[in-house]
Structures are given as structure tokens and as C-alpha cells.
């Protein structure tokens, strides 16, 4: 259908203005982080760009430690949820057994519940088995919130895998694990990448469970640390901006890597087809 030139111009205008509105706060954060400390109090573009804020924040706050904690927890939980979750998704897409429907329903409903509803009893149960304030405890909790996402993302990819290939493998004498390892995994590699990035971000961005389950300073993650910097130490926006930029750079890189698949992950495979 032909689009009238007026409509076309208006569309471009809307898109450009909207992109500006949605990116401005992020750009402003970056600009603030590179300002000389004295100029942070002024609403203006910086007179010069400097890394002073980054240096100060790394010296005064254990931001490096926060960052490492976040990376370890996110990588650990992603590895577990990706391995166990894709096995489960493979099974749910290929095999028919009595527990199949209940498992699918459970994973879908799990995504809907608020973090605090799970975090509060988990805090108590983890205290009983001495898992509060431990890295494994936090990894386990994050694995649980990643699993529904991994399972639903991978289900979509496994359903696109032709079953003829799997059957051919079985006829040729592969056992069922060999089929997964040699035939299915190479086909769903892009799916594993998508699942991994989404899981990583889910843990990387998580505030509520990290706040509830690991209140010790030793295990503070980036989101908890940055929120505390603001809530406890008040208006050191110069330092906060530098820390926040360090925190979101990995996210931006992953978002760009992921953008082709993002719609699928956002809907949990729900709107597929």
C-alpha cells in the first residue's frame, strides 16, 4: 500500500523523537559520570570529560567486589539453569508423559509470582539450612527464577527441531543422550545463546532476592550496592553515575547481541506463531 508523504514524515518524526526520549536518561547518566566532580551539581554539559568519578568510586566503595559478586552469581546460576532447563525443555517438547502438563503449567505460573512472595519464606528456609548470606544460596535462588524462562525459550527452539533427525539418529544406533549431544544441541545453539543471555540478565538485574537473601556486605551485588549508595550515602550522584555506568555496560552489550531474538524472550514464547 502506498503511504502518503505526510504520514511518512510524521512517522519519522515520531520515531526520532521517541528514540531521543527513551535514550536520553541513559545518555544523561553517561554524561554525568564523565563530568568533573564539581560540575555534577550543575545542569549543563561538562566542560571536559574525565574518569575521576570512576577512580573515586572504585577507591571509596567496594564496587569491584559488587561487580565480581554479580558476575559470579549470574554466571553460576545461568550455567545451572541452562543445563537443567534445556534438558527439561527437550523432554517437554519431545516426550509425552503424565507429569508433562502439570510441569508446563507450573513453570508458566512461576514466572508470574512476585519476588518477595518467594523471597520471604526462602529467607526463613535458607536460614534453617545455613544458606542465607552464601553465594550458593543466592545462585540457587536465581536459578529458580531463571528456569521458567529458560524452559519456555528452549521449548520454542526444540519444537522447531525436526523430529525426523532425532529418529534417524536413534535408528543409526545413537542412544538418547548421544542424540541430544550430537544432533540436537548443534541445531539449537542459537537458542542456548538466547537462553543464556536472558538468564544472565535476569540474575544480573535482580534486586529483591539479592536484597532479602544476602544482606551481608560481603555478598552485595551491583543493584543492591548501587541502591544502598543512594539510600544510605545520599546525594553522591557523581559516584553513583560512574558505578551505574559500569553496571549497565555489560547489559547494553548483551542487549545489542540479543536484539534479533528479543521479542521471543520477552513473551516467554507465549505469543509465538
Amino acid at each position: 500500500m502506498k503511504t502518503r508523504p505526510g504520514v511518512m514524515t510524521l512517522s519519522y518524526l515520531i520515531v526520532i523523537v521517541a528514540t531521543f526520549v527513551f535514550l536520553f536518561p541513559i545518555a544523561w547518566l553517561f554524561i554525568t559520570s564523565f563530568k568533573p566532580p564539581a560540575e555534577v551539581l550543575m545542569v549543563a554539559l561538562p566542560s571536559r570529560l574525565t574518569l575521576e568519578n570512576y577512580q573515586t568510586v572504585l577507591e571509596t566503595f567496594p564496587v569491584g567486589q559488587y561487580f565480581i559478586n554479580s558476575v559470579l552469581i549470574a554466571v553460576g546460576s545461568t550455567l545451572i539453569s541452562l543445563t537443567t532447563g534445556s534438558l527439561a525443555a527437550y523432554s517437554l517438547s519431545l516426550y509425552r508423559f503424565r507429569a508433562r502438563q502439570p510441569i508446563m503449567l507450573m513453570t508458566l505460573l512461576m514466572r508470574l509470582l512476585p519476588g518477595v512472595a518467594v523471597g520471604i519464606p526462602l529467607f526463613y528456609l535458607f536460614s534453617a539450612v545455613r544458606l542465607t548470606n552464601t553465594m550458593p544460596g543466592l545462585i540457587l535462588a536465581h536459578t529458580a527464577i531463571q528456569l521458567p524462562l529458560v524452559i519456555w525459550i528452549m521449548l520454542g527452539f526444540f519444537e522447531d527441531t525436526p523430529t525426523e533427525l532425532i529418529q534417524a539418529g536413534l535408528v543409526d544406533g545413537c542412544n538418547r543422550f548421544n542424540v541430544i549431544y550430537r544432533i540436537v544441541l548443534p541445531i539449537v545453539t542459537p537458542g542456548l545463546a538466547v537462553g543464556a543471555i536472558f538468564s544472565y540478565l535476569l540474575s544480573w538485574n535482580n534486586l529483591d532476592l539479592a536484597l532479602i537473601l544476602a544482606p551481608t556486605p560481603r555478598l552485595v551485588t551491583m543493584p543492591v550496592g548501587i541502591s544502598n549508595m543512594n539510600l544510605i550515602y545520599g546525594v553522591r550522584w557523581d559516584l553513583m553515575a560512574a558505578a551505574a555506568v559500569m553496571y549497565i555496560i555489560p547489559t547494553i552489550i548483551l542487549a545489542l547481541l540479543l536484539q534479533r531474538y528479543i521479542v521471543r524472550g520477552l513473551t516467554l514464547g507465549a505469543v509465538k506463531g
Partner: protein
Amino acid sequence: MAERATPTSVAYPKPSVKAARFHLSDGWFGFLITVPALLIMLTVFVFPLVFSAYTSLHRFEITRPDRTRFIGLENYATILQDDAFQRALGNTLTYVFVAVPIEFAIGLGLALALATITRGRGMFRTLLVIPQMLAPAVMALMWKFMYNDELGIINHLLREFGVNRPPLWLTETPLALFSIIIVEIWATVPIFVLLLLAGLLSIPSEYYEAAAIDGGSAWTVFRHITLPLLQPVILVALLIRGMDAFRVFDLVYVLTGGGPALRTDVLSYYIFRTAFTDRDFGLASAGAWIVSIILLTGGLILIRFMRRRA
């Protein structure tokens, strides 16, 4: 799942060690490989919820578990009559029913604009992917900085444009709640755009060509072709995003901490405070269950809707 025996293995003249080994049916194999994920989900997610259902029926303090005693539905009665809970519920509902329709309207407009343009669509879409991937805690901090009266760019610009006393975005009521809603809208519009754009682009162009031949106006085409074909995507997006907004925690925690004077309290934050500030575990569990039941109902509606489509 019933047939475990493998008649084929008996047929071998000399059963090898491999063939003689116990053979799993496909159903059992399928179930067994879900077990690791299932165990994690059951122990770290489902069991805690069951446990909190139990504690919601008891007087239960985190610090004094020895004083636990059964009180039936008293926690539920107490919480439903609690003014603070009612306010948190009211705020949460306002939050959802103001934010989500606006997000949808802006998202649809923007998706239509993106579907219309011919050059640079991929680039704009990539740029729009970024904001909604950021941690809500960081979104909240960025906006808290911009909302700041002295240091923030928003009030700075308002003063430049001659507004003498620009609003104190996060400390005035009822404005503070709406200031949080603005951040929520900023964070979520891109998600609606991406979902709706995917829906729009999947509508076959033949429909539009046929409409052009029939000479329908742009509005008629939108009303009678685009909207009906987009409807499933719209409903699923609204339901999922509505439930996400209902769980809001991070934005409130960082932006206002529920203040001023708990005027921006929401359900998740109320439950969090009840458990960790007031240390009333039983009451917090009752609150968590009320929220969970509301969300699970929403989830079942969503599933039923998706099944009907399939």
C-alpha cells in the same frame, strides 16, 4: 509410560550386555531428564510457597519461631482491615491501571510509526531494545537524579521555561506515585513497541493491498484489518505487562522507599516491610498469598486464552 519391557531386546540371539540392560521407556526417560530442573523449582520455589501458606495461618515471628501458634485465617482478616494494606492495594491498582493503558497507547502509536517507515527501522528497533533491558534499580536511579529539584535536569528546564516553583516530583502527594508511573511507562513502552511491531509486520501485505483496491480510508483499514489481526498479541501483552506492573518493587524501593509517609506504598513493598521491618512473618505471608492468588488467577486466564487460540 506403561510399557517398560522391551520386546526387541529379547529378540537378539545372543543378548549383549548392552541389550540385556534394563531399558527405559521413552516416557520415563523424558520424565527423568526433567528431574534436575524439577527438583530445583520444587525446593526453591514451590516448597517455600507451600511453607508460606502454612505460616500465613500462624502467628509467626522471624526472630522467635518458638512462639509460633496456629491462628487460622486471622492474619488474612487483619491484613485486609489494615489501612496500610488497603492503601498499598489501591496504589498498586492505580499503578497498573494508569501505567499499562498509557504504555499500550504510546507503544501502539510508536509501533505503527515504525511499521510505516522504510529506512532505519532495524536501527531504531535496536536502540529501543536497550532501555528495557536495564536493571530497574538503575532506571530508578537515573530518574531519581533527573527528578531532583536542585540537580535534576527536569526542574532545571522547567525553571528555564519560566516555571517558578516546579513540582517536587518524588515528595509531593499525590504526584509522587505518578512520578513512579512515568518511570514505569518509560521502561515498558519499548516492550510494547517490540511486541506490537512484530505483530504488525507479520500481517500479510495482501490484506492491505485488497483494502487499497476497495478504497478504504486509513482509519477503516486500521479498525477492520490491523486491530482484529493484532488482537491476540495485544491481549497477551496487556495481561503479561499488567501482571508485571502488579508486582512492582524495585522502582518503588529505590525511587521513594514508599514515601512520603507511605503514600507510594505498593503491595510488594508492603509485604517486604512487614516481613523485614515489622518482622511479622505470618502477616507478610498472608499478604504474599493474597498477591499470589490475584496473579495466579490472571495467569490462568492468560493460559485459557492462549489455549483457545491454539
